[in-house]
């Protein structure tokens, strides 16, 4: 975060030195895009907050740990596709799951779907890509994440 602040300020200063007018246009363009996206993001975050109240992380972890076999994979993929968990929370969670005895393939599927598929953030994605392309991307990325997750888990065990 500090790095981002530093980079933004440096870029702004350099940009200002070269061309003051162009810089203002750039800032205005960026902020306009931000303002147009903000309502959708707020709505998604509000919806996710409500959903996560009824489906807290602890419950998710419990179900991932309890189900083996195909059901375990299916739950991992489903939760991963829906959840909106930042990396700094997801990885410690995955680490805890490993310690509690959940198999690597299931954790790998959870991690890969979490990173690559975003069902709840679809309203945001649609604003940039349109409905069809967004669905197509999520479907292809879901398939890829299942392949990556399952094979990673299996190779890891060899």
């Amino acid at each position: 975060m500090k790095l981002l602040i530093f980079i933004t300020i440096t870029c702004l200063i350099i940009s200002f030195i070269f061309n003051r007018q162009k810089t203002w246009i750039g800032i205005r363009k960026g902020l306009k895009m931000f303002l147009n996206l903000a309502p959708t993001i707020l709505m998604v975050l509000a919806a996710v907050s409500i959903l996560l109240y009824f489906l807290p992380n602890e419950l998710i972890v419990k179900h991932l740990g309890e189900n083996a076999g195909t059901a375990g994979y299916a739950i991992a993929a489903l939760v991963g596709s829906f959840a909106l968990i930042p990396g700094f929370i997801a990885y410690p969670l995955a680490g805890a799951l490993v310690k509690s005895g959940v198999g690597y393939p299931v954790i790998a599927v959870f991690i890969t779907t979490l990173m690559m598929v975003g069902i709840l953030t679809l309203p945001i994605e649609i604003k940039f890509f349109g409905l069809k392309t967004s669905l197509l991307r999520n479907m292809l990325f879901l398939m890829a994440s299942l392949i990556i997750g399952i094979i990673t888990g299996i190779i890891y065990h060899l």
Partner: protein
Amino acid sequence: MKNYWKRHRTSLVFTIIFSVLISLSFITDFQPGISIGKDRFWVFLKEMILFLPLMFILIGLGDVWISKEKTEKHLGEQSGIKGMFVVIIMSMAQVGPLYGAFPVAYLLWKKGTSVRNIFIYLGAFCTIKIPMLTFEIGFLGWKFSLIRTLLSLPLIILIGILMERYFKNRKFEMFEG
């Protein structure tokens, strides 16, 4: 202002109702509402409240300074393996959630980046960005990360190629958000 309201009515109404209900929860000491507002919504919001405006300022600057000709040459249809390499390195250096990558993808598209490279960029952003890898190695070990990365790379390139094929006879279009 009127246009803004019209364009975002659904999300704005939803957010306002949500805020009112959360405020009421705080006033009446309604625990589920307080928990949703404080432990979840605020935590999410805090993560992006400074991050997104800064990122969008950078995107705006990119919009006025990055030349279309050069982007087309290095990342466009004819950019080949070098172009793929450049977008992968670019995405690895980034931070933030996936929805932060969509506006960057829009900028790339606007400047003439090929369909293939846009989806390779998104794929690499999801799977191998460096800040995320450091976390992964810390909690799941370097062996896990290495295997996952080596499997991810060919698959995201494959998806990029598939997307390019799919859009060969169709119009690919992105929007400002």
